[in-house]
């Protein structure tokens, strides 16, 4: 059993660590920002804006919770400001999630294992459900996708899995509750979604296991609550005091995106008022529109096309979804078997709650469905699928025709192999080719070229129009620009999300060809420049289309 677990962990590690710096082909701006802020805090104790030991990084005015940057510091210290070093914490927590999921699901499958009648195959021996779940998570495209980029959500998921596991342990041995409280409250510093998800899942846990909780000595409960409050205090303080904390929430929530869907509504209200239609004034109320939008957003996460399409290009391998299509029938069977199967009712409640509250944080935002904001879905999909596989195989072993049985087994196995192999190819080979633009590829070469010839120019202008948004951060990241220097230079010139930036000889702003002085080095999109300008170098995306031009005027 242990050997199989080790093998699964090994597979998880290979899939998360191999070519970590090369696939995806380039850090996106969030990764670059986390990396550079880690570097900055490591050297000066301050983030790019000069804030001392921040709990929240202002970054591109999205106010990222800062813990990831701190987690990255040891790796950046050890290996330098490299892409893979910045991504390493996410990958490591991904591997740990696979391991913890194994232990978590042991609780879950206890009853399922005890009723093993008619089992003929050794494969279905004890603990197979847990092994299967963690294996499915190890090869999950969804989990691999976000374990291989420096992104907070994956660490947030890991902390949730830890916290829930420690909680279940704590019901038997209360000491674990302290650890559970600690990891759960620490999660406030990891990722925005967790500020909603973690409290909700803990409320669910407290309700479901209220009897067990009452049986625990009050001493442990008090200490757990104190730990949670103590750890979460700085963040709560920040959220209540600092207006900036809300700005990100406002920036992405659908409430702020008023124009399109309320316009129609205003029109309706005018008509209702003209017709003295009281029913209409109630039904066309703005709040109902909000409520409907929330529900629509929520339900959008139960779209079957998670299996084949996914959402944004950066959230999945090209031509793939975030779940394997071979999993679909087993997922459905699993939900059925779990609903009616002989599982602990409390465990049933927990898993269904988990599954159903995962999309809530994302449902307040526009831009749904969203694979990162709902990363907490994991590993519930894998749990259902594993149960489905076990259930289906149990039914199949009852089949009297032996040859047919083997035929079905081998067909399923072949289909799995095809699906898995396809995914590996799509991720490790095709992703770089097809989506390098989405990954903001090209800066590495551009920065090194610019740095090489930098001394020949008085001024260097870099475009920050899409797709070169936040280009300043990539220049800081790849040039390893001294943070102490940048903090001084940027005080006056560097602002928020849409602002222009400035440091050293660099200006980051839209290029206006007519108005640029001659003798300036310009870095921008090929479309920024007229034909026949003096090209020093053009950097291509990995599919061969031109990405960044370096031009002298």
């Amino acid at each position: 059993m242990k050997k199989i677990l080790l093998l699964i962990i090994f597979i998880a590690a290979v899939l998360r660590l191999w070519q970590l710096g090369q696939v995806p082909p380039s850090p996106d701006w969030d990764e670059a920002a986390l990396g550079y802020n880690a570097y900055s805090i490591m050297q000066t104790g301050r983030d790019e804006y000069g804030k001392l030991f921040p709990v929240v990084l202002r970054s591109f005015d999205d106010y990222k919770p800062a813990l990831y940057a701190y987690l990255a510091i040891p790796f950046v210290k050890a290996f330098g400001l490299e892409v893979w070093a910045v991504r390493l914490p996410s990958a490591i927590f991904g591997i740990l999630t696979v391991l913890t999921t194994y232990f978590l699901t042991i609780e879950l499958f206890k009853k399922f294992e005890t009723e093993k009648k008619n089992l003929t195959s050794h494969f279905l021996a004890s603990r197979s459900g847990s092994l299967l779940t963690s294996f499915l998570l190890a090869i999950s495209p969804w989990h691999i996708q976000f374990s291989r980029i420096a992104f907070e959500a994956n660490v947030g998921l890991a902390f949730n899995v830890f916290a829930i596991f420690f909680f279940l342990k704590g019901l038997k041995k209360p000491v674990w509750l302290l650890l559970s409280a600690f990891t759960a409250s620490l999660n406030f510093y990891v990722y925005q979604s967790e500020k909603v998800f973690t409290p909700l899942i803990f409320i669910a846990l407290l309700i479901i296991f209220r009897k067990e909780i009452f049986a625990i000595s009050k001493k442990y409960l008090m200490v757990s609550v104190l730990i949670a409050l103590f750890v979460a205090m700085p963040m709560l303080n920040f959220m209540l005091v600092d207006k900036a904390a809300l700005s990100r929430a406002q920036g992405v929530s659908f409430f702020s995106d008023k124009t399109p869907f309320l316009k129609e509504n205003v029109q309706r209200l005018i008509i209702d008022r003209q017709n003295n239609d009281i029913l209409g004034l109630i039904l066309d109320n703005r709040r109902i529109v909000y409520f409907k939008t929330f529900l629509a957003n929520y339900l959008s996460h139960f779209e079957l096309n998670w299996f084949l399409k996914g959402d944004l290009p950066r959230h999945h391998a090209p031509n793939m979804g975030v779940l394997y299509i071979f999993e679909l029938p087993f997922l459905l069977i699993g939900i059925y078997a779990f609903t009616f199967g002989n599982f602990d009712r409390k465990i049933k409640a927990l898993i269904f709650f988990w599954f159903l509250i995962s999309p809530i944080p994302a449902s307040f935002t526009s831009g749904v469905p969203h694979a990162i904001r709902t990363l907490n879905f994991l590993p519930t999909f894998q749990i259902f699928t594993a149960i489905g596989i076990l259930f289906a195989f149990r039914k199949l072993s009852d089949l009297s025709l032996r040859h047919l049985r083997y035929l079905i087994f081998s067909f399923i196995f072949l289909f799995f192999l095809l699906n898995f192999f396809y995914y590996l190819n799509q991720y490790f080979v095709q992703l770089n080719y097809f989506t390098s633009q989405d990954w903001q590829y090209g800066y590495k070469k551009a920065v090194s070229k610019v740095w090489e010839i930098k001394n020949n120019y008085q001024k260097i202008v870099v475009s920050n129009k899409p797709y070169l948004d936040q280009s300043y951060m990539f220049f800081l990241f790849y040039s390893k620009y001294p943070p102490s220097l940048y903090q001084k230079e940027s005080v006056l010139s560097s602002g928020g999300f849409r602002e222009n930036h400035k440091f050293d000889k660099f200006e980051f702003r839209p290029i206006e060809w007519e108005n640029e002085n001659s003798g300036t080095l310009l870095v921008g999109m090929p479309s920024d420049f007229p034909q026949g300008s003096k090209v020093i170098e053009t950097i291509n995306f990995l599919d061969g289309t031109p990405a960044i031009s370096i031009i002298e005027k």
Partner: protein
Amino acid sequence: MKKLFLAFILLIAFILRFYQLGENPPSLTWDETAWGYNAYSLGIDGRDEFGRFLPLDYLESFGDFKPPFYAYLDIIPVKVFGLNEFAVRFPSALFGVLTVLVTYFLVIKLFDNHRTKQTQTQNYAEKIGLISALILAISPWHIMLSRAAFEANVATFFIVLGIWLFLEAIEKNKWLILLSVVSFALSLYTFNTARVFVPLLLLILAIGFRSLLFEFRKQTFFAFILAVLLLLPAFKFFLTPQASLRFKEVNIFSDIKIVETANKQIQNDNNAFWSKIIHNRRLAYSAEFIKHYFDNLSPSFLFIRGDGNPKFSTQDVGQLYLWELPFFIAGILYLFRKKEGYWWIIPLWLIIGIFPSATARETPHALRIETTLPTFQILTAYGLFFVFRKVSYLRYLIFSFIFLFFIFNILYYLHGYYAHYKREFSQEWQYGYKEAIAYVQSVEKDYEKIVFTEELGRPYIYFLFHTKYDPKKFRSEAVVEREVFGFVHVRNFDKYVFTKDFSSFKKGNNKTLFVNTPSGVAENAEKLKTFYLLNGNPILVAYR
């Protein structure tokens, strides 16, 4: 008591389908108009608009080769009520009400039958039947499609009827299987999608009841002969290129991009042999098919917004009500759990009902998957029934809460439909033609020629319809053009000329009346009258 309930449900179905049938939707689409005029024409001399005598295989219409049965059904309503909106939509609305009735009988047969020997189901099969019928009666999906001349809606009736008769034949009178065959055959003559769906459905029924069909081999044999005879008139047409024309135009398998991507991926793998397997274009097309299939099950389509085409949905509620969602899911789970009666027909029906639509680019598509109705409603009813039997404590609280939401949801839909729908989507219903044509008719004696824009699509049929033009006269006068792809354009008849190109006509002699879209009106033109959509935007302008 049960009969009273059923009558009440049918009354609701009737009101929701017939109230303001001629006024809302606000005007006729060109397909509806074509149904009406063809019925009118068939009613006069037994020929369709272009003069084919009693066509059984197709109506050429706009070159879309419509299955003809709806036009025949519409002959009597047009005779009785005259050539107007109400008469055109009458068959669809009527068969909508009848579908509600047949659904009741079908559900009883599905869950209460002596062959599966489940006596306990007798007690509640009727209740589930009533709930299913009620849910179908108030279903936004079914109401929207019953309130316009959609031939799909009639086909759905014949499919439900066919399945019910089939089960009756299995249970009671073996000879009813012949009626079942007639009903299925009629659906094939009514709606294109049924031509894919019905054979698949029959295959499944045949496999499911193979031993019984073998037992009744005499009846089965006659049913088979009858089916062949009934399909004979149309069979030759099914094999012609025209029959598959529409399909080719909209299907996903002609999308060249998929092959290009596959080739590129193989190239990225240095043309390795395994890469040719995993990036095989057949696999890529299969994936594409499944994607389109899943689109039809998307939560937004089913429960929030409905079909993106406002003709099939008010855009306010989904194809199903949101309150149905938990019961729909519960219904699926219970159905598989309990395995009562011929339960297996429902999921298989639902699954194959989506097949035809998944081959098309435009998904989800409420009309093309209407053949899946009323499986959604039956599943919801099944779930609803067992959830309420199961819930023991807080029963009344939960019940009243859900009931409130249920009432709210229905009010929300109906209010949106009657208070806002007409105004917001009159353009989708080709509003403006009727008004413009009435104006043209009132002044046409002052003009030698009337030039009418083709920009909004197929104006000729509206002229025929709203002027009740004599079909014989039309056939002798009309100048008809047929495109390579089969599309039919009527260029002119009588004084009327239909064109997109206004530049070739001389202006200024005041003997020609022009009607064009506002953007196409010449600058120096003398505007006589502007026609507005119900939301106040101009759609057509008459000028000299």
